[in-house]
């Protein structure tokens, strides 16, 4: 298939293809981080993860309309406010959901699956009633559109670079929160031994609520960022949920490092195969490989030894 091309062309294509893989990697990490925190640290299977993302997307939509109408001069930078607001909105809704629904189900982890699935349906219908069934268009500042031409052929999408930087910042942030802060220490203590953590004076309920809110908040930021590359509609969250679960399960449920490793493996495999095969076949092969590996290593790529 490469016979007709010069070496420079091929080099450029592989460079772009590598970049496409990195963008996909960032997108996957961003999608999965929130879920991995909730699933990994709390054992709660949050089926409404996609809907929390879409909440972030709708917040961005509202922000863009608001800023466009009242402060057009700030339009170039509104995206940063929008992401912060998306974090707050999704995080608050997460805390509310934890308080009203999830905390009653900690002893019945499989029921959280059903409850959050119900929640996802409720949220979808709520978005449909509030924003309408049709997708909404989020207008973006001009500097986020288009691409940077490096050579004649190599062009790097700006929104891809943006997502990569954002993912990097958030991953670092999550690392600091979980491994370098008091809240993170408490969270990890609760994960390792809930009763003991309670006995030494950690408010385990509060830790649960914060962890859940943090996971949802990150989903909100992800949703906000994805308005650049995807659609914003009541059911758009469903587009992400399967990939997200795939990554978290494949990476090992309790390990953030695993999430990152599995995002990398899946994104590279998928974007390379998409290049050589057709899109549907690439998906089939990716899923087959993941299923195969999970049969050999049911705990996923990485796993933590913890006492349950």
């Amino acid at each position, binding site marked *: 298939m490469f016979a007709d*091309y010069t070496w420079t*062309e091929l080099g450029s*294509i592989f460079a*772009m*293809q590598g*970049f*496409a893989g990195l*963008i*996909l990697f960032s*997108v996957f990490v961003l999608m999965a981080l929130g879920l991995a925190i909730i699933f990994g640290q709390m054992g709660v299977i949050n089926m409404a993860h996609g809907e929390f993302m879409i909440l972030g997307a709708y917040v961005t939509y509202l922000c863009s309309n608001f800023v466009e109408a009242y402060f057009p001069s700030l339009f170039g930078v509104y995206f940063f406010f929008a992401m912060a607001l998306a974090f707050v909105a999704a995080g608050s809704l997460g805390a509310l959901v934890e308080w009203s629904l999830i905390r009653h189900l900690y002893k019945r982890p499989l029921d959280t699956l059903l409850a959050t699935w119900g929640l996802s349906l409720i949220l979808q*219908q709520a978005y*449909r009633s509030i924003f309408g*069934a*049709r*997708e*909404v*268009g*989020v*207008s973006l500042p001009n500097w986020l*559109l*288009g*691409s940077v*031409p490096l050579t004649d*052929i190599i*062009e790097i*999408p*700006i*929104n*891809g670079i943006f997502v990569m930087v954002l993912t990097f910042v958030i991953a670092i942030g999550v690392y600091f929160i979980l491994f370098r802060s008091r809240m993170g220490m408490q969270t990890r203590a609760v994960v390792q031994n809930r009763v003991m953590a309670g006995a030494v004076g950690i408010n385990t309920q509060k830790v649960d609520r914060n962890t859940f809110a943090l996971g949802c908040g990150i989903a909100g930021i992800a949703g906000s960022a994805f308005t*650049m*590359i*995807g*659609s*914003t*509609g*009541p*059911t*758009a969250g*469903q*587009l*992400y949920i399967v990939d997200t679960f795939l990554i978290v399960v494949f990476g090992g449920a309790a390990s953030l490092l695993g999430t990152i490793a599995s995002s990398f493996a899946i994104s590279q495999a*998928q*974007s390379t195969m*998409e*290049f050589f095969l*057709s*899109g*549907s076949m690439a*998906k089939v092969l990716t899923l087959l490989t993941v299923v195969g590996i999970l049969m050999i290593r049911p705990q996923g790529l990485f796993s933590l030894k913890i006492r349950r």
Partner: protein
Amino acid sequence: MRRVKDVIQTRMSRRSLLAGTAATAILAATGTVTPSLADEVNTTGLAVTDDTVQVGILHSVTGTMAISETGSVQAEKLAIEQINAMGGVLGRKIEYIQEDGASDWPTFAEKAKKLLVNDKVAAVFGCWTSASRKAVLPVFEQYNGMLYYPTFYEGLEQSPNVIYTGQEATQQIIAGIDWVSQEKGAKSFYLLGSDYIWPRTSNKIARKHIEKLGHKVVGEEYYPLGHTQFNSVINKIKLRKPDVIYAIVVGGSNVAFYKQLKAAGIDMTKEDPLLLTISVTEDEIRGIGGENIEGAYAAMKYFQSLDNENNIAFVKAFKEMWGDDVVIGDVTQAAYLGPWLWKAAVEKAGSFDIDKVRLSSPGIELTTAPEGYVRVHENHHLWSKTRIGRAQLDGQYELIYETAELMEPDPFPEGYQ
């Protein structure tokens, strides 16, 4: 709603004058028909009384497909209102029973059965996806109902119980490909679609036609429904350098595809390569954003911007009923034709009986259609023109070209049976 009705009524009186000079079918409707007794016009026990007739509207208003089907529901209700304001069908007001298919194909079948068996409706306007149509088809054939189906679709079907008011694949595809090769000198094509029956069949027809013209297909690819990452395929397109990207991507994937195409530096206003789609109507552009698709071409039969008297009146009435910010896409217009075609067929037959309506349907003409003149073919599809529009920043299409003649519907093109 009440106010809207008044407006439509006054508007309709002007409309009926226009219609009077037109088709005989419409002429019959403007008021001279004396209502006949219920059992004379209805020998099979349909829900027809001396002054009312019941029809069904069957679309998804919840679930994923609500995005697309909402416009069709609105168009059908508008048509029914307008027909009632003109005096109804055979002197009877239309009452509709609306059922929700909930984006779930078995639900469609169940609701279709309910409409036909329990409600005994005289006609059903509904369905959107091919999957939902396939699900209700056996029900309509078993209980002998009449379905008016609005969506452009892949063809390969012809049922005595369905009138297809959208275009079948060959009508949309052949005119579009002829146009890009003649006007734009296109020689190579990259075919791309979501992975299900409509894009696959359409691309098969497209490939055959492209090769018949002596041009080349340099790539053909399908992505799962809901796919959101198109960077790899965009790289492949850049490598193969086709003259035309022929895209049949649908749903949420559409938004991702056009946003990423733009972000990858493919500027469609420069036509390098040119993008031709058959799956993006004004409805979809709302989600995609005009800035992301500006410059792309679409081949379909209707654009909201069509500049003719029928369409101007239609767009005005539609906005009066449903608000100023609605947009009207190809399928919405096709859905609007359904009740009018049914009314014309019933009045030509002088009866609501399904069998008589079926017999009288071929040859029915509408001169008042927003897209212009249409006529029902023997094969239950419509003769219609195909048009090429170019997407504008404001989300509307600018009409670039239309076929001189009506395109003949050909649901079973050679080599596809």
